[in-house]
């Protein structure tokens, strides 16, 4: 029987939901399954209503499901607020100590969680481990492999913690085995242990992709949901020769990146929309001085502080148009952790080859969610640093002009100190040698030189990934983190008799040549699906792509699309 089961853990911030989500994800990833874990949390360290949702499938999975099969309610708020998503047969596990809730439905399962935790030698706060044991018992998982994984994950926290949590899991597991009187047919038989697949977040994949692309310098200022990129890179710093320097603000961050890049190393920063606002000045500096810079913008709902811990695709127009003046740039929006990993190499290569800023758009849904991946191969990453003159390949006597005219718009770089040449870079309009100029002729030439790069960059932009049948009834078009939900929605629609295809764009700007795409016939109804309120990409599609959109599906409540959100909206539109 095909497995597609979702466990939601709801409760107060500080109850360890994220850790449970990660732990369950690792258990199932290492025992034959694919997992997608996403979080829906409030902007606070303690309290509130939050949940982490773990979806387990026997085939690759890239989005959450709106269907919850087991709810682990760690507090009264979760019982009240999350229960409505359950069908009568779905399980809710909660602590008996929560008063005022009675139900004769055997699927509403009160367990003395805190009491069992204390009896098992643990502390009250370990009741979440009791809940894990109970949930896994309901799902028919064997106990031993769970305990083994627990040992692995808790090992760093010391023997005593391992032992106590182990006993709590055993106790919850045993409680279900002897007390659960109902039937729960959904089972996840654990396959033999195999450490073959990867389990990581979108942020970790971006950071890893950057490290494998030769990143040497990172500077940033913490801002959700980008901070995990900085933290992960900082953890690599000592062993892998990456300098991570905490900046006083995002202005400093991007200027440090530009300095490091000018000096010759691959450098990047990451932030969210509000932080990127401060970086816009530096973005223009990179454009004018023709200094490579990679900037990850992990979007969250704005404007201003917005919803700090939630998701949106609201910053596409902003990053495409950020900064005054006219200069080239490119923008990417990977759809899942695997694509995020490989997109980073493209970002660094294009930044170096065309000597421009490059933006990689993520969002809270992509950056914070965990994915099971078959593999990531650093061997596939090819590093291309573009035109560089070094001491070995330079001609003498040295007459170096940083902005020397070239048909491609690209002048070779020299890293200061690496040859006997001196390098002048300037944010003022400048001569080929890099000195300030007021000349109308030079100004015109330099604008043309910089803009020449656009056509070169456009040739590197990949068309969207096409999924589904030729000549479809419906075409869903999207970009970035909606990738998984779009594909699954198309599958559902196709199964229901509407032939549905998906175009997913990762390379967004300059708008790729869509001439190679399969022709769309008149009968195909085109849906643009975006996690924003105004259809930012839809405008580009109709403007630059000359693709006429029939229907627009927007979502801007700070929550991500599930496949069924899309399916229902499509049906409503037809």
């Amino acid at each position, binding site marked *: 029987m095909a497995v597609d089961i979702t466990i939601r853990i709801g409760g107060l911030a500080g109850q360890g939901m994220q850790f449970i989500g990660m732990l369950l994800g690792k258990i199932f990833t290492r025992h034959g399954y694919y997992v997608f874990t996403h979080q829906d949390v409030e902007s606070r360290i303690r309290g509130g209503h939050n949940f982490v949702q773990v979806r387990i499938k026997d085939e690759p999975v890239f989005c959450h499901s709106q269907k919850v099969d087991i709810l682990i309610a760690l507090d009264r708020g979760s019982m009240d607020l999350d229960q409505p998503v359950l069908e009568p047969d779905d399980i809710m596990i909660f602590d008996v100590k929560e008063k005022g809730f009675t139900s004769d439905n055997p699927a509403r399962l009160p367990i003395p969680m805190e009491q069992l935790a204390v009896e098992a030698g643990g502390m009250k706060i370990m009741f979440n481990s009791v809940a894990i044991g109970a949930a896994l018992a309901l799902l028919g998982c064997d106990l031993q492999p769970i305990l083994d994984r627990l040992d692995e994950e808790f090992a760093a926290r010391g023997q005593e913690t391992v032992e106590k949590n182990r006993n709590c899991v055993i106790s919850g597991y045993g409680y279900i085995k002897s007390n659960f009187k109902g039937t729960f047919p959904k089972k996840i038989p654990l396959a033999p242990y195999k450490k*073959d697949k990867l389990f990581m977040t979108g942020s970790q994949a971006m950071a890893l992709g950057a490290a494998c692309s030769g990143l040497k310098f990172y500077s940033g200022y913490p801002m959700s949901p980008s901070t995990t990129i900085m933290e992960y890179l900082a953890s690599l710093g000592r062993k*892998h020769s990456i300098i991570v320097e905490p900046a006083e603000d995002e202005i*400093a961050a991007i*200027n440090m990146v530009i300095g490091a890049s000018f000096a*010759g190393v691959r450098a990047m920063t990451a932030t969210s929309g509000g932080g990127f606002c401060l970086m816009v000045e530096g973005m223009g500096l990179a454009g004018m001085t023709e200094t490579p810079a990679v900037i990850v913008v992990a979007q969250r709902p704005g404007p201003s502080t917005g919803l700090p811990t939630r998701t949106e695709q609201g910053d596409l127009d902003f990053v495409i148009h950020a900064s005054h003046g006219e200069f080239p740039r490119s923008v990417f929006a990977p759809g899942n952790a695997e694509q995020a990993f490989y997109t980073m190499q493209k970002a660094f290569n294009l930044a170096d080859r065309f000597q421009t800023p490059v933006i990689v758009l993520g969002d809270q849904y992509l950056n914070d969610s965990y994915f099971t991946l078959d593999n990531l191969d650093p061997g596939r990453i090819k590093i291309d640093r573009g035109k560089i003159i070094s001491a070995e390949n330079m001609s003498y006597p040295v007459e170096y002009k940083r902005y020397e005219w070239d048909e491609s718009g690209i002048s070779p770089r020299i890293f200061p100190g690496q040859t*006997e040449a001196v390098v002048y870079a300037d944010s003022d309009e400048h001569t080929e040698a890099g000195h300030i100029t007021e000349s109308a002729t030079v100004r015109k030439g330099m604008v043309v030189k910089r803009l020449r790069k656009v056509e070169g960059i456009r040739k590197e932009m990949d068309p969207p990934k096409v999924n589904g049948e030729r000549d479809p009834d419906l075409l869903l078009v999207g970009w970035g983190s909606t990738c998984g939900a779009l594909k699954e929605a198309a599958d559902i629609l196709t199964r229901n008799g509407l032939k549905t295809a998906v175009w997913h764009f990762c390379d967004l700007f300059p708008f790729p040549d869509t001439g190679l795409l399969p022709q769309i016939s008149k009968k195909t109804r085109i849906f643009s699906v975006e996690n924003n309120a105004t259809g930012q990409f839809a405008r580009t599609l109709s403007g630059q792509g000359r693709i006429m959109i029939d229907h627009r599906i927007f979502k801007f409540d700070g929550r991500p699309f599930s496949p069924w959100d899309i399916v229902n909206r499509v049906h409503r539109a037809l």
Partner: protein
Amino acid sequence: MVNLDDFYSDDPVAWCPGCGNYSILEALKQAFVNSGRKPHEIVIVSGIGQASKMPHYLRCNAFNGLHGRTLPVATGIKLANHELTVLAEGGDGDGYTEGGNHFIHAMRRNIDITYLVHNNKVYGLTKGQASPTSDLGYVSGTTPMGSFSPPLNPLLLAISMDCTFVARGFSGEPVHLAGLILEGLQHRGFSFIDILQNCVSFNRVNTYQWYKKRVYDIKDDPSYDPRDMGMAFRKAQEWGEKIPIGIIYRNDRPSLDEKHPAIRNLPLVKQEIDRASLEGIIEFFR
């Protein structure tokens, strides 16, 4: 051996005749010659303003960036290649208003760069508006009733940040200034030099003659100890009839580039990518 000609640039100079910047330029060249560093081993990062045009009039690597953003660019350059001699240069507007936050944190980091601020107590390039170091009551286009806010004392700010090298020079004493810059270049850590400078076009009070009558070398007082923070605080507040120039405060604590383990042996820019170790980090996620 390097000489003054090695630092000659033929870029036409765009400063006003009589500007204090000319003698700062000569002092800077002299300090470079005395340091023994070659033009390609030096980088000057400048901001925007009259002072920030400086690197164009010299022959050495230069990054003429944004108003107020010299220090983060210089920090990035130094961390990517600490074998370079890195300077940041700008005016009082550039450094003490737009760049104020970066100034504070560069001192905290104690990054090994030398920071020169041309302080003429006025915004020159935008034609004479009050700057953060303009005197209380200074009348200008943006302060027609006179500046309501007292001037910022950059030396006090720097000492309070425990900046490891705090000095003041005067454009009218170029030999003394060249000596200060050389000491700054040789100091391992953040070297801050506030350079008093006349503005012939806009500052009618703090003229060359006004300063010339008042400045004295701090070394004239043999009892002065720049390692004594209390003394330094008092000295930094001396202004009026007598104005001290020289090294006001210094201390030794490790610079940022000495602390990063990634560059203990080799600058980042010279390090190859270690493919094997990267395979290893992927394994961590299995």
